[in-house]
């Protein structure tokens, strides 16, 4: 007799094998849970690479015609304002991680390099996805990718350079010494653990959840949900890297903590207090989800949470960023 599969396992299987069109029928919350459930058992890098080959989707298959109509005719001004602030955070987050990932690849093992090459292609595709959304649905002036990024930059809800700015500097430090374990752990903490595993996962439900409830922006929903599935491979790889690094050298846990202290100092800036109520999500609920994600990720890495960090985490704001 075959063991009975749980509902989550069945959902995971459907999500794992869905094509782009199929994402219109899958709830974003199920995909977010798929990312978390993948952390129970982390596959080696070449297995993640094989999964990438199977799950890769074509960003140019999306048709934003209905999205443009919804954007221009069906959404309120308040909804448009908050929606594009959240989407802009992801647009710049995706571009940032695409641009900074090669430095992490430099000092990686050969199997890891193969996986990271697929990770890099994912991030490039996600950047093009948001570029297409902002030009074809929102109607920002078309031009180069940088022209569109410049146009959407002012829409971000983040205060100052944010975690994307910090990642750029951490990437500079890694480029100077790409095999240094402390540099690599700090990089994986801000990128894989925080930007992808906490910020993106906590705020990914905001705009697709709104699209699903209102029946708006179908191409955005499909592309964003497919993007979320890609993040599962990235977060799995990053958590595996951190687990392995700290298992070999437990003192590296202090680099994780120090990076998180800096990120949370930045996160506490008053300008980061975004509100998502207009899109139908309770901001406090998103904030609590953010805290749960960070606490879970530290448990996934296998390190305790120091009391000073716990206090700051309890006060943190939702971090709108993508990766």
């Amino acid at each position, binding site marked *: 007799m075959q063991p009975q599969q749980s509902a989550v396992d069945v959902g995971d299987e459907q999500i794992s094998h869905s094509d782009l069109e199929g994402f219109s029928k899958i709830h974003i919350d199920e995909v977010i849970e798929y990312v978390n459930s993948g952390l129970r058992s982390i596959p080696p890098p070449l297995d993640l690479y094989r999964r990438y080959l199977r799950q890769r989707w074509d960003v140019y298959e999306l048709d934003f015609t209905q999205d443009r109509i919804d954007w221009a005719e069906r959404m309120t001004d308040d909804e448009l304002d908050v929606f594009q602030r959240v989407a802009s955070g992801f647009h*710049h987050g995706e571009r*940032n991680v695409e641009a900074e990932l090669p430095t992490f690849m430099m000092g990686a093992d050969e199997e890891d390099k193969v996986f990271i090459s697929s990770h890099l292609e994912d991030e490039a595709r996600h950047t093009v996805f948001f570029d297409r959304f902002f030009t074809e649905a929102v109607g920002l002036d078309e031009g180069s990718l940088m022209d569109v990024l*410049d146009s959407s*930059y002012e829409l971000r809800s983040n*205060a*100052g*350079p*944010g975690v*994307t*700015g*910090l990642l*750029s*500097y*951490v990437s*500079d*430090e890694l480029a100077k010494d790409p095999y240094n374990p402390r540099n690599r752990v*700090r990089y994986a903490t801000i990128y894989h653990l925080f930007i992808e595993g906490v910020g993106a996962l906590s705020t990914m439900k905001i705009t697709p959840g709104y699209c699903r409830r209102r029946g708006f922006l179908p191409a955005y929903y499909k592309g964003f949900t497919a993007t979320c599935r890609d993040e599962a491979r990235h977060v799995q790889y990053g958590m595996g890297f951190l687990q392995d690094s700290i298992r070999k050298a437990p003192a590296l846990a202090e680099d994780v903590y*120090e*990076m998180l202290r*800096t990120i949370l*100092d*930045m996160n*506490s*800036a*008053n*300008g980061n207090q975004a509100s998502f109520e207009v899109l139908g999500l309770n901001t406090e609920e998103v904030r609590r989800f953010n805290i749960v994600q960070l606490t879970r990720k530290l448990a996934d890495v296998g390190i305790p949470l120091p009391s000073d960090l716990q206090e700051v985490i309890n006060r943190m704001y939702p971090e709108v960023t993508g990766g």
Partner: protein
Amino acid sequence: MTGTDGHGAAETVDFLSEGWLAAVQVRLAAWPESEVTLALICDYADWLGIVDGYDIGKAMTYHRLPISVGTALDLLKVVYFVYELLGVMAGVPAAYRSPVAA
């Protein structure tokens, strides 16, 4: 060029020659090297862009202001300390009254 301070070589420079960069003042501070804990560098064209209003957060993210002394973590902590300080000051209910010409 005018002025010195306790560190001996701080200068205020008005670049007015030939009319280029006429509106910009730069304070050059030659601190003893051992006392510098954080310093950024910038090439001239990018500096002009920032003076002209290019977003400094973007300049940081796009590697236009690399660190020459210090660490990424120290830099971002300082940036956000100043950011919050300005936010607190802006929240003080006070108004500046321009001196009225006699």
